[in-house]
């Protein structure tokens, strides 16, 4: 998510392929190092949707189709 832009594709790949996975791990680390939060939209068996905040690449469900990075929360006025 970017001001003035909305959604931006950062990287994509297949985690089953070692080369892609390595690239995704590196990009994931870069985004977190830049101070962003990461979340994975998920849904349960009844179709209820929510999000899972992830702090490490290993926390991302293997079948997740995307990870969304967004600026970290800050207390507002």
């Amino acid at each position, binding site marked *: *998510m970017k001001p003035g832009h909305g959604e931006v594709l950062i990287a994509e790949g297949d985690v089953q392929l070692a080369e892609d996975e390595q690239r995704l791990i590196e990009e994931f680390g870069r985004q977190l190092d830049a101070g962003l939060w990461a979340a994975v939209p998920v849904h349960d068996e009844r179709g209820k949707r929510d999000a899972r905040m992830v702090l490490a690449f290993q926390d991302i469900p293997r079948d997740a189709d995307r990870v969304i990075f967004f600026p970290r929360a*800050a207390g507002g006025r």
Partner: protein
Amino acid sequence: MLLALSATALVAIALLSDLILPRIEEAYSRLRARRSRSPELMFDPGRERRAEQRARELLRSCVGDEEWSMYRDLGFIRVWGTMADGPELTGGAAYAYLIYPHRPIVAYLAQTHRLLNEYCVGFPDETRPFGSARLPDSDDVLAKWMALTGDEERLIETANMHLPGRQLDPVAVGRDLWRLARWERVRMRSQAGMPADAAG
């Protein structure tokens, strides 16, 4: 006579120039600074509209159908709270939050609609890619939704908590809760195949 007046005017201008010239120079440099800055800070309504359109699509793809319809029709999303004691020791009573774009999150008791707190929280992007740290409206709503459903406690701890009414008019929030209840009745009847105008 004319010569005398001209001479007086020239003398007056010469005397005042010490006062006037620095102000003119200052105004001119301010104008130049503003002009040199404006290209990157200029608000582009087209760009913002496209950003909001992308943000809406992303929001729609992440939240459930009910939440998306709620946002589209009412302008806010309700998220049920999951903390055992609630945000304010509610004694286990069901509570929820209303998420508005770029406004505080409001917590309320589901049964009585009593407003509990306002949580002021933002997601500023300090890289300011187009001169602003502000996400599109729907991205702000999605960020709040993900943070609330993903880690409610952390978001609530991060936010600045205020009593209801600090920024959002409690009467307006009460009206929104009434609109939400009515919207849910109409939706339920519509899903059950009953006429919507029977909702009351």
